[in-house]
C-alpha cells in the first residue's frame, strides 16, 4: 500500500511501545528475586489449560456466559495475530501473502474462513460486553472509561477489517476490480469469498457505494485498522489491558507444587535485614518481580472481591483496591525503586566502609513518601483476611494475593510491632505451653485416657504418627472427633501412636499472623521431636496442621509424608480395612475446609466417605469444592474478634441452613467450632447437626 507510511507508523509505534516496555521490565528487574523457571513442561501445560484454554472463565459454572464471551474475544485475538502479520505485509507490498497461509494451501483458506467467523463472533462478544457493562452492570465490574475505550477499539478493529474485506469484495465482484486487487482463487478450493460469509455480509452494507467511494473505504479501513491496532498496542501497558501481554507469562510463572509462593523463612538473626527493614514486606521495593508482574496483570475483573468472605461480610478488604493501590504505589515509585536497585548493586561491590554508609544513606532516602501499611494499605484491610485463597482460586490470570498479605503482616509484627494485640493471649499460650489456650502442656494427652492409645515415648516403632493438634487435644467439642478417629484407626488395626505431651502447636496461626519468631520456635521444637523419633508418616487430624507439617516444615528440615484423616480413612475403606453402613439418616451436606480443599486439593475423599454413610442422600452447597465459603477462622482470625460487618461464620451457617439438611459435615476443628456456633446463633443447633467426617464414619462403622 504505502511502504513509507507503514514504516513510519511501525517505527514510531514500536519505538514508543518498546520504551514503555523497557520501563516496565526494568522496574520488575529492580524488584526482589523469585524462582519460577523450574518444571518447564508443567508450566507449559498450565498455559495451555488456564491461559489458552481459559479454564477459569469457561470452566466455571458461575458466569459461564460472560466467561465464554471473554474466551471468544481472546481466542479471536489469537487467531487474528496471523491476519495482522498479513496486513502489515500488505502495507509494504501489495498482494503480500504468508507462506503456508497463502492461496496455494488449504490452510490458507481454512484460516481466512476461521478469521472471518472469529471476527464476527468477537464483534458480537464485544458488543455484548459493552451491553453487559452499561446495562446489566454486574457488581464486580468497575465501569472505567478505559474499559469502554478498549471495547470500542476492539469493535473498531473488527469492523474495520470486515469492511476492509467487504470493500475488497465489492471492488472485485461488483466493480470489476479496477485496482487489480489480489485475492485467493484456487482451482481446488475456489474463490476466496466463498469462505468468508461475514465479510460478504459486511460488503452488502456498503454495496450501494460506487467504485471510487468503495476504494476510499478500502484505504480508510486499512489504515484505520493499522493505526487502531498500533494505538491499542501502546495503550496496553498503561492499564488493565496490560494483561493482554502479561497474562500468558504470568500463568507460565504461576506457583507449582503449592498453590502460591510459600511464606519465606525469615532469618531473624540477620542484622542487615533489621537495618534495611527487609523482614517481611515494609516497602514497595520489597515485592518480588513475580508479584510486580501480578500487579501488571490484574484485569480488574473483580472476581476476587466477589468470592472474598471478608468483603462479602462488609470488612474493608477489597482486593481490587488492594491490587490497584499496590500497583499505583509501585508505578509512582518506579524511578526510586530502579535507582535503589542500582545503589544496592553498588553497595554489594563496595569495599570501603565509609562509602558503604553513604550509599546506605542514599538508599534510605529513596523510600516512598507513603507508608506501605498505613497509607497505601490500611491495617483493618490487612488483618481482615482469613487466607482462604478463594481470590487466588478464581483469578483468571493466577494472581497470588495471599502471600503479599502474609508478608505485610510479617513486617507489621516484626518491624512495626503493630499487630492486633488480642493475639497476645494465644501467642503467650503457645510460648509457654505449646497451645493457644495456654492450658498446661501436661494435660495434652488427657483426652486419650483409657482409650488404649500408644504414646511415641512408650513405643515409637509404629507405622503412623497421629498428629492430634491443639483443638483435638484441648477443645471439649473437638476431643470427641479425636476419640472417633482413634476408634476408626483401632478398628482398622492400624499401628499408630500420638506424641501426647510432646506435641506442640505447629505454629500455623502464628505464621499466618506474621509472627515468624513464634512460628519458628514451635516448628523447630516439633521438628526436633519428630526427627528424634524418626517419624516418616503422619495422619493429621486438622487441615491447618496438615498444611504446615506437609508444606512448611520441609523449609526447616522436617520432611514427612502427611495426609489428612479423611484421605487416610478413605484409603482404609478402599482397601477394605473398614466397612461403612449407609445408616446416617437425614439429608447431608459438606462444608469444604479452605486448608483441606483449596490448599491441599482434597475434595473427593470426604465426599466418597459421606456418600458411603448417607442413607438419605448428599447435597452440595452452592459454594462448594474449590469455591467453598470460608468459615472465618483461618489467617489467625480464630483468635480475633470480628468487630466489623456481619460475622463470616453466621453468613455460612445461613447458607447451610437454607439447604434443608439434617447434618453438615466438616473436616476441620476450626470449621467445626465456627459452623456449630453459627447454627447455635441461628437457633438451629437441634435440627442441623454439625459433625466432623470422622465422627460420622465412627458412628456408621460396620
Amino acid at each position, binding site marked *: 500500500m504505502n511502504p513509507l507510511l507503514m514504516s513510519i507508523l511501525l517505527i514510531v509505534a514500536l519505538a514508543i511501545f518498546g520504551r514503555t516496555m523497557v520501563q516496565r521490565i526494568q522496574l520488575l528487574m529492580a524488584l526482589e528475586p523469585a524462582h519460577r523457571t523450574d518444571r518447564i513442561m508443567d508450566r507449559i501445560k498450565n498455559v495451555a489449560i488456564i491461559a489458552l484454554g481459559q479454564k477459569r472463565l469457561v470452566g466455571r459454572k458461575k458466569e459461564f456466559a460472560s466467561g465464554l464471551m471473554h474466551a471468544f474475544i481472546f481466542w479471536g485475538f489469537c487467531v487474528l495475530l496471523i491476519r495482522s502479520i498479513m496486513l502489515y505485509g500488505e502495507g509494504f507490498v501489495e498482494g503480500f501473502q504468508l507462506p503456508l497461509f497463502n492461496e496455494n494451501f488449504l490452510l490458507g483458506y481454512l484460516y481466512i474462513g476461521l478469521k472471518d467467523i472469529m471476527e464476527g463472533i468477537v464483534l458480537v462478544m464485544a458488543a455484548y460486553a459493552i451491553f453487559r457493562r452499561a446495562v446489566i452492570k454486574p457488581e464486580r465490574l468497575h465501569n472505567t472509561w478505559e474499559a469502554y475505550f478498549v471495547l470500542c477499539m476492539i469493535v473498531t478493529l473488527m469492523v474495520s477489517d470486515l469492511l476492509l474485506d467487504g470493500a475488497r469484495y465489492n471492488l472485485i465482484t461488483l466493480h470489476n476490480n479496477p485496482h487489480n486487487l489480489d485475492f485467493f482463487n484456487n482451482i481446488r478450493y475456489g474463490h476466496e469469498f466463498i469462505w468468508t460469509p461475514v465479510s460478504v455480509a459486511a460488503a452488502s452494507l456498503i454495496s450501494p457505494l460506487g467504485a471510487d467511494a468503495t476504494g476510499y473505504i478500502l484505504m480508510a479501513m486499512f489504515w484505520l485498522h493499522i493505526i487502531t491496532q498500533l494505538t491499542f498496542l501502546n495503550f496496553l501497558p498503561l492499564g488493565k489491558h496490560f494483561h493482554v501481554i502479561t497474562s500468558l507469562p504470568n500463568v507460565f510463572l504461576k506457583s507449582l507444587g503449592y498453590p502460591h509462593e510459600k511464606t519465606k523463612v525469615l532469618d*531473624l*538473626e540477620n542484622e542487615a535485614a*533489621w537495618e534495611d527493614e527487609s523482614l517481611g514486606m515494609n516497602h514497595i521495593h520489597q515485592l518480588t518481580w513475580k508479584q510486580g508482574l501480578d500487579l501488571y496483570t490484574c484485569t480488574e475483573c473483580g472476581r476476587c472481591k466477589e468470592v472474598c468472605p471478608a468483603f462479602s461480610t462488609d470488612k474493608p478488604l477489597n482486593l481490587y483496591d488492594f491490587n490497584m493501590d499496590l500497583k499505583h504505589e509501585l508505578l509512582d515509585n518506579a524511578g526510586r525503586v530502579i535507582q535503589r536497585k542500582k545503589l544496592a548493586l553498588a553497595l554489594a561491590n563496595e569495599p570501603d566502609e565509609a562509602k558503604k554508609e553513604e550509599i546506605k544513606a542514599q538508599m534510605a532516602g529513596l523510600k516512598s513518601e507513603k507508608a506501605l501499611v498505613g497509607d497505601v494499605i490500611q491495617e483493618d484491610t490487612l488483618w481482615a483476611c482469613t487466607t482462604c485463597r478463594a481470590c487466588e482460586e478464581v483469578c483468571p490470570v493466577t494472581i497470588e494475593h495471599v502471600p503479599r498479605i502474609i508478608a505485610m503482616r510479617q513486617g507489621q*509484627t*516484626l*518491624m512495626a*510491632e503493630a499487630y492486633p*494485640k488480642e493475639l*497476645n493471649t494465644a*501467642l*503467650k499460650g503457645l510460648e*509457654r*505451653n505449646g497451645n493457644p489456650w*495456654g*492450658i*498446661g*502442656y*501436661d*494435660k495434652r494427652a488427657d483426652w486419650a485416657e483409657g482409650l488404649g492409645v500408644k504414646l511415641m515415648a512408650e513405643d515409637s516403632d509404629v507405622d503412623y504418627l497421629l498428629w492430634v493438634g491443639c483443638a483435638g487435644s484441648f477443645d471439649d467439642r473437638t476431643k470427641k472427633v479425636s476419640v472417633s478417629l482413634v476408634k476408626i484407626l483401632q478398628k482398622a488395626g492400624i499401628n499408630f501412636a500420638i506424641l501426647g505431651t510432646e506435641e506442640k502447636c505447629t505454629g500455623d496461626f502464628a505464621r499466618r499472623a506474621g509472627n515468624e*519468631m513464634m512460628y519458628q520456635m514451635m516448628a523447630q521444637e516439633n521438628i526436633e521431636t519428630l526427627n528424634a523419633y524418626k517419624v516418616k508418616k503422619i495422619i493429621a487430624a486438622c487441615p491447618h496442621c496438615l498444611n504446615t507439617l506437609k508444606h512448611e516444615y520441609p523449609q526447616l528440615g522436617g520432611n514427612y509424608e502427611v495426609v489428612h484423616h479423611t484421605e487416610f480413612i478413605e484409603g482404609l475403606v478402599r482397601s477394605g480395612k473398614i466397612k461403612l453402613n449407609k445408616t446416617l439418616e437425614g439429608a447431608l451436606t459438606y462444608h469444604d475446609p479452605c486448608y483441606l480443599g483449596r490448599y491441599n486439593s482434597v475434595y473427593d475423599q470426604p465426599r466418597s466417605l459421606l456418600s458411603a454413610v448417607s442413607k438419605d442422600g448428599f447435597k452440595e452447597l452452592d459454594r462448594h469444592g474449590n469455591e467453598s465459603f470460608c468459615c472465618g477462622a483461618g489467617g489467625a482470625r480464630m483468635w480475633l474478634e470480628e468487630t466489623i460487618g456481619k460475622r463470616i461464620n453466621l453468613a455460612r451457617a445461613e447458607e447451610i441452613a437454607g439447604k434443608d439438611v439434617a447434618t453438615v459435615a466438616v473436616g476441620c476443628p476450626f470449621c467445626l467450632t465456627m459452623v456449630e456456633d453459627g447454627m447455635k446463633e441461628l437457633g438451629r443447633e437441634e435440627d442441623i447437626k454439625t459433625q466432623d467426617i470422622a465422627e460420622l464414619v465412627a458412628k456408621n462403622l460396620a
Partner: protein
Amino acid sequence: MKILTTVKKVVDVELNIHVKDGAIVEDGLQYVINAWDENAVEAAVQLKEKNNAETTLVSLGGGDNADIIRKCYAMGIDEGIHVDDPALAKADSAVYANVLKKVVEKGGYDLVITGKQAQDTDSGQTGIMLAEALGYPCVSNVVSIDVLDDTHIKVSRLGDSGTEIIELALPGVITVSDSINEPRLPAMRGIMMAKKKKIDSMDLAGLGISGAEAGSNALKSEVVEFMASKTRKAGRKFEGDAAKITAEVVGLLATEAKVF
C-alpha cells in the same frame, strides 16, 4: 524517677502439681515469671515510656533466671540484678523483704513496684514487709498509677468498700493487681537487644548481707509438708423432666443437705 520492680521465678500454675512423700514432684514442671510480677514490669515500662523513668528489676533466688530477666529486658526494663545464694533456698517473705531492703538502699529507688502476690506461695506479704523494713509508705492491690510530680504519685486501690484513691509520697512501695494492665508480648527487636544486655549477678555477700540474716535461722515460718489439695467430688446429676427433677433436688436440699 528511678523504679525498681521485683521479679520471681515460680512454677507454671497451669500444670498439674503432684505431691509425693510430703514434697512436690519436680519432674515435668516448668518455671515461668510470676504473673503479678509481669504486671509490675509492664507498669514500670509504661512509666518509663510516659514519664521517662529509669527501670531496674531485681530477682531473688531461682537459679538460672537469665531467660526470665531477658524477657523483662525485652519488655523494656533497662537494668537487672540477680541475687542468688544457697541461703535463699528456703526463704520466707520476711527474709526476701530483708534482702530487697538492701537492694533498695543501694540503688536509691524512688518507687518499688512488686506484684501483689507470688503464684507459688500466694502469700502477698513481701512488698508490704519491704515497705515496713524501709519505713516507706505502701499501697497494695493497686490498679492504676498516675505520676503527679517528682515526689508524689496517685494510685487507685481495690479495697473492700470500693476503689480507694490514694496519694502516695515517694519514695514508696506499691504492689499491683492483675487488673492494672495487660503485659505486652516482647517484640522481636526487644528480644534481640535483650540477648546482649548484662545481668548484674551476685550472692548475698556481694550484696552485703550475712547468711545469718537470710539463712534458716532468720525464717519466721517454714513449710514442713506439702499435701494434695482436697478435690471436690462430683455429686449427683439429674436429667429428665424439669418439673420432676427440680422438685426432687429441692427436697434433697432440705432433707439431705439440710440447707433449708
